[in-house]
């Protein structure tokens, strides 16, 4: 129920710029996901919001109130630390209960909350253990349980499920989402798992080298990446082909991707053209451009295949559930699924 | 010790001088300095060897038994020499004749005489002395009680009694509101000496014999009274120099070595007086160090030369100034240059020379010394500090005191 705003926040550690002039707005009750490569500053942003780190410059607002200098404990945040930070001298139960005791909740309420959080994360049978008696994933779940049990106004989760198996992760993710919705907790969620990001996020921010590259819904980020970095980073790794804009579309050497209304000023521009493997079809689609190629390699991912195809010397990867029949194949690409970026600025060129 | 010896010209005679005194390093250094001068003068090279008292006894005994004696001269307290003599370890010094140009003090002569009476020989030559005195801040003289003059105090006349001191302290207290008598009743203090060697002797004539007697009860009564005018911090003081200097106290009784620094710092402030007397006399302890020659020692003539050197007034004066032991010859005092030391030396001379004085020595009790002291200190604690009944305390402690002397088969002093 808190709206969080970052205004030009930067953080330097000596000569390292961990966060570089980030401005963000997280709506009240939103589940906001931070995505980005390792070392891009996600943890640092969470820590700044939590009040564990003072930004070198810039301000943080909760509901419009400047909290940049407010001590951490007063901000009403709950946090899952990337390193868990489970207190080693307390049993799991006490780890989860301590923040509640601090809040002077009645004993019965504390017990109920601890057990419900433990149930959500499948650690009910571990409540009497000490952290050193837990496996990595179990410890991580304790950290998550501790953060959600306090039902904070703001929930900050730093890769909370990275050490869990797929099944449990889906389950835990669903529980977190439910709780978050129910209590309308403004949540900022760091993850490396794009499926998780997409399943959870109201909106996503994609970061790189301390900067925010794009903020938007899953669809926006996936379908309209603002620059080459985002396009490359989101989804399975994109095929890139160099090309030139002509008045009829984009010429990528071995094919022309037709666009009807190309603005004159763009004509002749060198561009990088990105196509996702999953947007390359082996069966005909409506309005698709046809390419001819030769299958070079087939990777079996159990439920689907990555097919490496040589198209006039350029290697493209296509993701498909169908095993290709024969070596020579026809590929179909829809112009609306083709992303065009300026070769120099790497920014998206809107073209249709 | 590194000091450069002068080049050897004539054949050097070496003698060993073993001493229980002046063992502390700085005093040793002083002795080495002194003996270097002696060497320059006589060509006799003396090695000064500080030893424990038991060690010297063992060494002498062993050497005499073996017939190979190395030590030519022994320095020690009169009581220690008494012990050596009792074992027949010493030469008779009578044969060396008198030492000219110096007058030994009354008390020193008496000690030598005492030994002669027991052993029939002159066991030692007095070397140096220390005793307890009363140091007075000159301001106190403004508060003398009626019937007591400054002269009485300084000269130690008939009127300078413990009662007079009490009256004086009381007068000071009434006029200034302050308790200005100081006694060394702290952990390392020598209060017990005041008890057995001064007050008891002055009131009963003995240190221990009349421990529990009406005279003793009277004495304790006086002390209890005196305590009321004594500085309360006395129980933490082991030496009076500091309280005197800070003017926490005006009248203080203590060992010469423990007040000397005050007098060295501000000689003009203080007067040193002999101790007051009691009904029986002016009881006091004299600590006397003497020089003796072991039986059959080598180079006895050279040793005697050293004795002569060490008892010369000029040497004595220097010893007083450097190590705080006082001269045993009256000619030495005027030779002292430091005004503070000189003041004390005068006090000591006055005390040792006083006619009505009863000099006593600390009884040589060996391992029982601690128990002996403890009895007096316990009496003080219980009677004076805790206010217990004097008679009861004394009767309770008396058997223990007697037991000590009984066990050692010694007469009670």
């Amino acid at each position, binding site marked *: 129920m808190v709206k969080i705003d970052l205004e030009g926040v930067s953080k330097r550690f000596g000569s390292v710029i961990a966060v570089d002039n980030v401005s963000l707005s997280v709506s009240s009750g939103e589940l906001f996901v931070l995505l980005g490569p390792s070392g891009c500053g996600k943890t640092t942003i969470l820590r700044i919001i939590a009040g564990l780190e003072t930004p070198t410059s810039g301000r943080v607002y909760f509901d419009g109130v400047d909290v940049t200098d407010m001590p951490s404990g007063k901000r009403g945040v709950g946090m899952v630390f990337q390193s868990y930070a489970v207190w080693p*001298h307390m049993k799991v139960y006490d780890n989860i209960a301590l923040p509640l005791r601090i809040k002077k909740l009645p004993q019965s309420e504390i017990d109920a909350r601890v057990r419900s959080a433990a149930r959500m994360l499948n650690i009910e049978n571990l409540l009497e253990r000490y952290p050193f008696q837990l496996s990595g994933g179990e410890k991580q779940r304790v950290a998550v349980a501790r953060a959600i049990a306090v039902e904070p106004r703001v929930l900050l989760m730093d890769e909370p499920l990275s050490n869990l198996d797929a099944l449990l992760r889906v389950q835990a993710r669903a529980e977190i989402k439910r709780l978050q919705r129910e209590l309308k907790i403004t949540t900022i969620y760091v993850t490396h798992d794009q499926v998780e990001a997409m399943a959870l996020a109201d909106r996503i921010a994609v970061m790189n080298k301390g900067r925010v590259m794009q903020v938007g819904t899953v669809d926006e980020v996936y379908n309209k990446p603002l620059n080459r970095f985002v396009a490359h980073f989101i989804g399975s790794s994109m095929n890139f082909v160099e090309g030139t804009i002509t008045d009829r579309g984009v010429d990528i050497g071995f094919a022309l991707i037709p666009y009807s209304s190309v603005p004159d000023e763009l004509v002749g521009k060198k561009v990088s053209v990105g196509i996702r493997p999953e947007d390359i079809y082996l069966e005909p689609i409506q309005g698709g451009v046809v390419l001819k190629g030769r299958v070079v390699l087939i990777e079996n991912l159990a439920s689907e295949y990555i097919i490496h195809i040589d198209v006039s010397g350029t290697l493209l990867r296509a993701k498909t559930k169908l095993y290709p029949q024969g070596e020579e194949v026809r590929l179909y690409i829809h112009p609306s699924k083709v992303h065009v970026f300026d070769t120099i600025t790497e920014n998206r060129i809107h073209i249709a | 010790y590194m000091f450069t010896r002068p080049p050897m010209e004539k054949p050097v005679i070496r003698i060993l001088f073993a001493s229980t005194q002046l063992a502390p390093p700085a005093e040793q250094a002083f002795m080495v300095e002194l003996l270097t001068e002696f060497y320059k003068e006589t060509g006799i090279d003396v090695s000064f060897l500080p030893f424990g008292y038991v060690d010297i006894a063992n060494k002498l005994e062993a050497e005499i038994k073996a017939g190979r004696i190395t030590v030519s001269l022994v320095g020690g307290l009169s009581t220690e020499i008494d012990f050596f003599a009792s074992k027949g370890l010493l030469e008779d010094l009578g044969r060396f004749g008198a030492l000219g140009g110096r007058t030994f003090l009354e008390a020193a002569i008496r000690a030598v005489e005492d030994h002669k009476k027991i052993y029939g020989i002159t066991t030692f030559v007095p070397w140096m002395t220390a005793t307890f005195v009363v140091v007075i801040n000159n301001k106190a003289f403004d508060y003398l009680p009626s019937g007591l003059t400054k002269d009485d105090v300084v000269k130690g006349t008939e009127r300078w009694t413990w009662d007079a001191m009490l009256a004086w302290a009381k007068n000071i207290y009434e006029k200034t509101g302050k308790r200005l008598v100081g006694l060394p009743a702290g952990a390392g203090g020598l209060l017990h000496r005041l008890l057995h060697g001064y007050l008891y002797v002055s009131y009963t004539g003995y240190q221990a014999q009349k421990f529990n007697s009406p005279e003793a009860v009277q004495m304790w009564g006086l002390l209890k009274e005196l305590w009321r005018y004594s500085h309360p911090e006395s129980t933490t003081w082991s030496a009076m120099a500091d309280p005197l200097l800070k003017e926490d106290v005006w009248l203080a009784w203590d060992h010469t070595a423990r007040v000397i620094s005050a007098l060295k710092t501000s000689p003009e402030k203080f007067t040193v007086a002999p101790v007051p007397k009691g009904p029986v006399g002016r009881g006091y302890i004299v600590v006397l160090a003497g020089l003796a020659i072991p039986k059959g020692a080598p180079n006895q003539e050279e040793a005697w030369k050293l004795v002569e050197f060490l008892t010369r007034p000029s040497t004595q004066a220097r010893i007083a100034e450097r190590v705080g032991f006082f001269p045993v010859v009256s000619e030495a005092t005027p030779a002292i240059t430091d005004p503070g030391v000189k003041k004390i030396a005068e006090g000591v001379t006055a005390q040792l020379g006083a006619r009505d004085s009863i000099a006593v020595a600390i009884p040589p009790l060996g391992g029982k010394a601690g128990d002996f002291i403890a009895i007096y200190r316990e009496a003080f604690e219980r009677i004076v500090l805790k206010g217990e009944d004097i008679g009861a305390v004394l009767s309770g402690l008396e058997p223990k005191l007697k037991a000590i002397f009984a066990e050692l088969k010694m007469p009670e002093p």
Partner: protein
Amino acid sequence: MPSPLRKHIPYILVAPSLAYLAFFISYPIFYTFSLALFGNPSPMVEVMTSPRLGEVALYTTLIIATVIPAQIVIAIFASLFFLNRFRGRELVLYLFIAPLAINEVAAALIWYTMLSSSGFLNKLLINTGVISAPIYFFGYEFIDRTLLAIFLTEVWRATPIVFIIIYAGMQMISRDYLEAADVFGLNLWQKLRYIILPLIKPYIQTALIIRTLFALQVVGPIFILAGEYVRVLATEVVYWYSMRLNPGVASAWALLIGLVTLLLGGLYIKLLRPSAGAT
């Protein structure tokens, strides 16, 4: 190290040190016992029936029971304070630790001089008109205040040791744990109670043991500040050994010190057993 063979390696490695233990540690200990226990009358019996025992027990307990807790508390707060990085921190820290470098006898003398009736404190208070007559801290009549002076001196002199140990412990606490506490709203007191103290238990234990040990051995300052009239175990040892020349009884008192130390040490270890999880 899993192997059953390897389990013996420590033993083999330290065979010499075990011999050392057996001989050089056990023998002297037995020697003290024999000195203290045998004799006629047995010095230990003498001590246990001595009228001073009560007094000694009282003063020893009083001093130990006030000085050590005070030191632990001060050291904990000082450590918390010095964990903040502030300008001039190093200087203040050194100043705080400085008394360590002062000999205990010297320290006692300084405090004696400062608190004595003609000392600095009284002069200051009189000159500023706060009091008109000096406050006496020393002397048999003011033994309560003397105890206060002993307390102050000991705290002044020996707290830095406790501090050094506890500070080292606090510095070892992983920042994560404290940050988690901050985030979850624990205030300073709660952080202290729930996170810091449990985690530094082994250090508090070490500090307690070392301090108790030394507090039980303090002699010089007590003689200086209180004369003979505040008797504790350690002053009895010195008294019997060097004033009464009775090594037997001195040993018996020393043995008592040893026993009390072991007893308290055991107590600390028991009370401060680290929570199972704290590594």
